[in-house]
């Protein structure tokens, strides 16, 4: 029994399977969509999901929805490209989940310790929109096609400032290793050292996970469900889950590089990694909460306006944030 526990507590098992990997990701997926609906409902002066489990405010609503996805007929329309139609959502989901393996759950507690972990993570994240575009093409639907094109435009818009603002933090800490970046924030969090990068990165999380006001690729009143229009049943569950998983990964990354990761937890509580992990997780939840709260506030931008914001505002700001980092380093660094 203890052997099993020891085995599970090995970072190379614990991280992909428990936290921040599969198990937590799945629970977050169930929780975050429910929370999104509940938060929007509260702002809108109503209850949201409730009767499915009344004492807990309908907390298992997503389980009911998941069951429905599972047992619904997965329609594969006649005119789609079958191979892409079936495999693109699977790969998309996998790719959205994959970056969790490079995220550290505690000091020195990583599945893959690499000096380049930030780059690996960003690189993996960049891949998933490609599959969104592929599945949009494979759906053979005009609305999907437009949605895919919109996704493509947005990718080119947000990737550059996303990299730049992440890199500005790397410049600040002088490392590309996420663990080392967290260690560098022992005294002061990154968000205070480079607030500009923090704001830009937060906006970019909204864009890249297509949250309001940048929910453009699947704008329902314009192009139905965008790339996912033709998907039904469990395939739809996968593509929907993928975008929330991406939010989860980016939120954790945000917590790690801007919000000080497991600090200010005292060092004697950081090992075993549970408490450190919980600390990171809670910070990530805050970011996720902000991202889903935006649904209740904003309508969506038009695609040209979003691209304009990306190139005219976010790119210059991201470049500025690099200079800000250089300035901070010049003035004494961290």
């Amino acid at each position, binding site marked *: 029994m203890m052997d099993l526990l020891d085995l599970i507590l090995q970072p190379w098992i614990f991280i992909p399977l428990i936290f921040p990997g599969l198990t937590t990701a799945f629970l977050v997926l169930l929780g975050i969509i429910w929370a999104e609906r509940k938060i929007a409902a509260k702002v809108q002066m109503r209850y949201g999901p409730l009767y499915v489990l009344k004492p807990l405010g309908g907390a298992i609503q997503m389980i009911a929805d998941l069951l429905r996805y599972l047992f619904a007929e997965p329609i594969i329309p006649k005119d789609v490209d079958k191979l892409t139609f079936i495999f693109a959502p699977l790969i998309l989901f996998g790719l959205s989940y994959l970056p969790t393996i490079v995220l550290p759950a505690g000091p020195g507690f990583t599945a893959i310790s690499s000096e380049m972990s930030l780059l690996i993570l960003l690189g993996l994240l960049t891949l998933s929109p490609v599959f969104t575009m592929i599945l949009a093409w494979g759906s053979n639907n005009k609305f999907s096609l*437009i949605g895919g094109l919109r996704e493509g435009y947005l990718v080119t818009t947000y990737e550059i400032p996303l990299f730049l603002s992440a890199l500005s933090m790397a410049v600040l800490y002088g490392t590309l290793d996420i663990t080392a970046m967290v260690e560098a924030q022992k005294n002061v969090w990154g968000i205070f050292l480079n607030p500009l990068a923090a704001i830009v990165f937060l906006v970019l999380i909204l864009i890249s996970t297509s949250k309001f006001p940048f929910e453009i690729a699947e704008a329902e*009143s314009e192009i139905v469900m965008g790339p996912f229009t033709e998907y039904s049943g469990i395939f739809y569950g996968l593509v929907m889950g993928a975008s929330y998983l991406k939010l989860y990964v980016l939120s954790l990354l945000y917590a790690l590089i801007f919000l000080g990761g497991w600090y200010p937890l005292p060092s004697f509580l950081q090992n075993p990694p549970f408490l450190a992990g919980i600390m990171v997780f809670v910070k990530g939840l805050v970011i996720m909460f902000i991202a889903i709260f935006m649904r209740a506030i*904003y*309508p969506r931008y038009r*695609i040209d306006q979003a691209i304009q914001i990306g190139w005219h505002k976010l790119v210059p700001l991201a470049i500025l944030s690099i200079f800000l980092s250089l300035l901070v380093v010049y003035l004494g660094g961290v």
Partner: protein
Amino acid sequence: MSEFVETISRSEDGRFLELLIGPQHPASGHMRLVAEVDGDVVVSLRPNLGYVHRSVEKIAEVKKFLQIIPLVERPSLADTTANNLAYVLALERLLGVEPPPRAQYLRTLLAEINRIHSHFYGIGIHGVMIGSSTAFMWAFGDREPLIHLAQELTGARITYSYIIPGGVRRDMPPDFPDKVEKVLRYIERRLEDYDKLYVRNPVVRARLEGVGVLKKEDAIRLGITGPNLRASGVPYDVRKADPYCAYPDIDFNVITREEGDAMARFLVRVGEIRESMKIIRQVLKKMPDGPIFAEKYYKMLPPNLKKYYEETKEVKFPGIFANLRAPAGESVARVEGGRGEVVIYIVSKGGMNPYRFRIVTPSFRNAVLFEHLVRNVRVADIPAIYGSLDYFPPEADR
């Protein structure tokens, strides 16, 4: 009018993509929009109507005069009072009946309550079309207090059938003015929050300002009506131009704006909500006492029903209402509803049914705006413009 000839220009090389928006589409409502897009730009758009054509005009020819009251209400469900009132005004002109003053005031009261919740309906739909679910929920939530008031007054949530030839069906309950005042204060308070969360929201403004501009001369030329007309700077309002019911005695302004864009149309609606609240307050203050049912029909009631009417202030129909006969002739009436001017034209040859019944609803007259405004705009502007028109397909198709 080369403008409307061949608006859908088939491109030879397949450069344009034809998008069929609707009838099953989150932003199409009960119609189909046939858009031709070049990249992200809409080259042309034609509405395909008729998905809710239920032949009101034909059915009216076999229905009796009183039975047409619910019939004309059905097409525009969010704004039933305007249709009801327009029809009854036309019918009263034909019958030569004049309702007593208190009934006139009660009609005005209901019409304004209905106008507010109809405008909230429009605001909500507009909100959800550009993606703000909160605007939809708030507007539909804030309709409810007003619907509750109308329900206390008439006994139904939406389809009031309240206005009948010669008066109205019920008097208002004694504590009604208090309740109205409470709801109006609530709405005033809420409008401030709308202002903060929605109207001044930079994303909303980016989406609506300068989008779908309708010029003043185009609005006149195309015969646009309602808030859409006034948002282009034409101060035409039937309530001022050809006053009916209690409007001659009431002081209110016609809200206009000069910009003519989607934002202006939205703001005219918000402004009219405020004006309607003003009107409601005045109506309740000036409400005269007296009967609510014309003497002509009251006399026909048997004594027990007269007694019931005096006790409860609830009108019982005289038996003649089942087979109401109108003299030969024709009459036309117009009423300013929430979405614009409702014109009703009745031709009677004498008898129990109209010979020809014509209802022109504001949405039908505004339908031309789709092809006029949605041109050289982006795909994402289609719902933004559509929403701003407050267009209700069943009303257009009848």
